Every structure is written in C-alpha cells, then in structure tokens.
C-alpha cells in the first residue's frame, strides 16, 4: 500500500464562470464550473482546485454557490483559492463544501492569520499558496537567500520575501499543505520550475502541490521525480483537451509513479 501521487486539475472561475473554457467532448456548457468539475470527477481526477479570480466584491458570492453545487455531485476533495482573507471567508467556503482553502495575499500581509485559521479549522484544510518568481538580481539580505521572491495579487506585487523562507514559515504557522506556483512558468507550457519546487519540498515536511507551467505529460513526471512533489496541478492541458486525466495518469504510471486508477463510482 502506497500513498498515491495526486493529479489535480485547476479551474479558474470568474463571476461563477470558467474563464479559459473547458473542452470536453460531451460537455454542454463549457463555461459552467460545476459541469467541468463533474467531468473531471468522472475522469478520475484525485482532487479539484477552484481558483476564484473574481475582481468585484459583489461577484465573490458566486463561488459559494459553485462550491455548493459541486459538493452535491462530486465525492472527491475540493480546494478553493482566491480572495480568502478572513476566518469568515474560510468558514463560508467550508460550509459550502470545500475541504481545503488556499490562502495567498492574506498569508503575506498577516502570517498570524494562518495560525488562527489552522487553530480554528485544523491544519488539514489550510493550504498556503506560495507564488514565487525568480529574482532579477541578488537582493540585499545576504547569501542564504534563495533565488525566488514571493509575489501577491496574481504575480503583480513583489513582497521582498524569500520564497523558501516564507514556505517554511507558513508551515510553522500551521499550513497543512503548500501550493507552489512559479509565476515565471505559469501559462508558458515550458514545465515546472523544478529547482523552486525541489528547494521547497526538501525544506518542509508537509505535502507540496507543484503548479505553473505544465505543457506536456513529461512535465508532470518531472514534478514528482525531480521536484519531489506530492501532487501535480495543471490547468490548460486539460481545459483545452490536449490530454485527458486518464492519459496523464497512465503516463505517470508508465514512468513508475504510483497513481490511483480506480473505476468510477457505482
């Protein structure tokens, strides 16, 4: 018996609709996140991630409805990230049916928020999004800083924080999992930033989800083999129908990585 490497499709949701569109053969409404979630569930995804990129405050409530409707049909773990800023935000998402919440900007501006959230809801449901970019030049702060800096607000705002130190700090505060995204690689299809992923997986003792840059199935293998990630996340290769979940799992399996290949629910 072996804990399996998780394969996690991610859906970007804005005002209750999937942003990039999802190409499934028999999906009637490609913009409906719940329909996409059900399709991923049926295809054997191990977990699902919703990233809410809704800008307006009014539009934010739509994600609760999306999560609630997903929970009625999908009996798999669901993580929701984007705009999670308060204990009340977390409570509402969990009550809607989310299993985990991913926190980014609020973790940077108030690290103690992670401690309060983990105390309240348990470490198992608190994921910290580590959004990192390679430094342009060696920043002041000495030789023991890593090559990466933490960014917030979808990669727009630099924070000056060292990515590996930040990751370790968040685990100390109570994060039960880290979602590590290379903002340099995100959307490029050129593969994970393996050095970044590895620097963090070698430092922390919680599971790490590798994210940002997947364009081929070999990239998924690299994330596990070289990055030592516990889970690999991808968006566009699945949305645009380049590869299916079963193809990705078969590829991981063919490369000696233990994955779950159960039949669908009765």
């Amino acid at each position, binding site marked *: *018996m072996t804990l399996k*490497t998780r394969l996690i499709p991610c859906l970007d949701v804005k005002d209750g609709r999937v942003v990039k569109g999802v190409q499934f053969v028999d999906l009637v409404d490609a913009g409906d996140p719940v329909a996409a979630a059900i399709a991923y569930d049926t295809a054997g995804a191990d977990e699902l991630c919703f990233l809410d990129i809704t800008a307006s405050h009014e539009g934010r409530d739509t994600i609760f409805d999306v999560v609630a409707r997903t929970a009625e049909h999908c*009996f798999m773990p669901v993580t929701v990230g984007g705009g999670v800023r308060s204990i009340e935000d977390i409570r509402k998402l969990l009550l*809607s049916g989310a299993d985990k919440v991913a926190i980014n900007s609020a973790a940077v501006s108030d690290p103690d928020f992670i401690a309060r959230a983990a105390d309240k809801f348990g*470490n198992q*449901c608190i994921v910290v999004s580590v959004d990192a970019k390679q430094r342009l030049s060696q920043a002041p702060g000495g030789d023991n800083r890593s090559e990466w800096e933490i960014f917030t607000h979808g990669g727009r705002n630099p924070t000056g924080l060292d990515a590996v130190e930040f990751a370790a700090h968040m685990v100390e505060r109570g994060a039960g*999992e880290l979602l590590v995204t290379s903002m340099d690689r995100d959307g490029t299809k050129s593969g994970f930033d393996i050095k970044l992923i590895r620097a963090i997986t070698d430092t922390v003792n*919680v*599971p790490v989800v590798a994210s940002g840059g997947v364009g081929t199935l070999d990239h998924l293998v690299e994330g596990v083999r070289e990055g030592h990630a516990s889970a690999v996340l991808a968006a566009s290769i699945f949305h645009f129908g380049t590869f299916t979940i079963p193809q990705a799992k078969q590829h991981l399996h063919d490369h000696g990585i233990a994955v*779950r290949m159960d039949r669908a629910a009765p």
Partner: protein
Amino acid sequence: MSQVAIIDYGSGNLRSAAKAFERQAAMLDHPPEIIVTADPDIVRRADRIVLPGVGAFADCRAGLHNVTGMVEVLRTRVLDQAVPFLGICVGMQLLASEGREKTVTAGLGWIPGAVVPLASTDPALKIPHMGWNTLQIVQPHPLLAGVPDGETGLHAYFVHSYHLQTESADTLIAATKYGGTVTAAVGRDNIFGTQFHPEKSQALGLTLISNFLGWAP
C-alpha cells in the same frame, strides 16, 4: 420512514457527507431520511447514527460535549440499544479511550486504545498523510463487503496526522501503510469507524455508505 442522523456539533462541513448518504439512500427500495442535526431528541429516534469530525481531537471532544445531552443519548442508543453507528475521521478517533494530540483528552472509550501521532521512520515522509491509499482488510466486515483491498484494490481518501492505535487486535478491521502501519478502520458489534473519508472516497466510499445503510449488526 427510517432515519439516519448525521450529528452536527460544529465540526466542519457536513454537506458532502449528507449528499453522499442521500445519493446512496436514493438507490434503496425504502430510502431512509438523512438528517443533519444537533438535536439529541432526533438522534434518540434515529435508526442509524453517523458521527463525522475534522480538526483537533480536543476541539471535537469539547464540541460534542457542548451539545447538551448528546453524549448521553449516544451512549444509550449505541451502547445499550445497539443502533448501527459510523464514526468518520476524528468522529472515529473519538471512539478511543484517549487522544494524545497536543494534550491528553479522554475519548468516548468505546474502542479501547489511544489516538497517537503517525510514527514515521522516514524523515522524508510528509505529514499529514494526505491523499489516496489502498486498504488491507485485517478482518472481513459487512461494511467493507465489495471493497477490493491490497495493492490493486480501491483507494480511500485520507487526511490526518494522528491515528487510533487499538489496544486489542480484535477491534482493528482495516489498515493501510504510510511509514508504518496506520489504522484505517475499527469496529466491534454495532460500532464502526473509518480514519478515511467515505464521503470523499468515490467508489470505495459510496460502497461503504451503501453497506452501512443496509447493515443489520
């Protein structure tokens, strides 16, 4: 109409648990009503009882005790009247004699044993044990009927850093491996508990829930 009570004592999200039970109940000739409740009187009348739970052992224990009369009703129905009972995750851990998470806290004591940290000999092993793992069924049990185990078996979804180490081998029903041996399911008589989340475990979990709804211990 018979009733299944899912106890709501402020520990986490019960929507997916309720939906999973409703889905499997609807497949029966006489579907039971699934009720999420914090009312001991409803639990007193229920034909089956489910105790979920996420978070820390001591918090869950305190939450359960804060519902006036709930623990007493549970004792009467489960221990005296032998109503089928299913504990999930920390709801299963609460069956132990005590929990040793942060501090030592007394449990319900229905399954003698202690809730202890996952012991790992491998420092590279990540904690929590989070994700999908297969089971080793140690003793055949009606709730695991139709669940293939071993390396090629179905997977269950786990997310935990502690597990229930049973005092007696008789109450260990299923195990899994993560570093060392990890308790996956415990039981005796009309009492059953899973460390994994049946409501998140797709085929395996839904099979177990159907088995529970038809269980006549």
